[in-house]
């Protein structure tokens, strides 16, 4: 399963999500959107909008599932934890 986390370096819920994934030994790619610049940042923001319909973080993408926010029960269900 391909897992990608869109996060902000300043966001407490993003930190909680990372902690949760790390604790469960999940491997994932991460984009820290606020640390990007210019076109790269805009592209990431557009992608987050496309995936989640908004600009609230974190946005976790696991195959075709998109989870917005730190949602333990949904993550557990989608990741089979």
């Amino acid at each position: 399963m391909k897992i990608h986390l869109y996060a902000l370096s300043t966001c407490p819920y993003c930190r909680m999500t990372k902690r949760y994934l790390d604790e469960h030994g999940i491997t994932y790619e991460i984009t820290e959107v606020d640390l990007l610049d210019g076109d790269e940042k805009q592209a990431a923001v557009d992608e987050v909008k496309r995936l989640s319909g908004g600009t609230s973080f974190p946005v976790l993408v696991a195959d075709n599932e998109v989870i917005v926010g730190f949602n333990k029960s949904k993550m557990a269900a989608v990741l089979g934890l």
Partner: protein
Amino acid sequence: MRRVFHEGTTIEDLKAYMGPFAERLGYKFNTETEFVDEVLESELQVLDRDGDVYCPCRVRTGDPKEDLKIVCPCIPFFRDEFAAMRKCWCGLFIRQDVEDGAELIGVIEQPEPGTAVAVPVCLLADLPSGTARHVKVGKNDIAVVRVGDEVYALSNVCRHAFAPLAEGFVDGHIIACPWHGWRYDVRDGTTDHPNADVRTFPATVRDGEVLVTVPLGRAR
């Protein structure tokens, strides 16, 4: 950086600055103090980098007008959603009637657009019988009117010359416009003038608070 902030602004400074605003809006800091400190610490990072206390969980669009909506506390821009959620997006602030804020930390869940939400608008004690007051719930300008122990809510805007009805004259179940005396029945918004009835909203009292039920606007 706004003048209210300065280099070396602390978490305690932010608490002292935001607390009174939240209180006016019917909110308080979350009862989980460690969580509050974590969020405010993040806001200090954002302040340092971006010059204002933007929401640490949302990204700035670069459009100054849009970005103003995510300056903490963002409660005024999302009042109806937050009333339903009983907290602001992140849970830094919770409604004053919530005793334990721990359960509200976590998921950013927003109600579906169109969901009817009962929003506290004022204390019954602040609305004497025979008076009206203007409240704003989301995008709705509403006149709440008290007649005896009953409360009513209708559009605050007279259909004639757009006067604020809450400044009008209450006589039994009738509110008369302050400018030309158009008379509306507060129970159903009807008036004698053709095609000029105003919209009404369900209104109730719970634990001394007046609640007005409005449908949520679009999701953000």
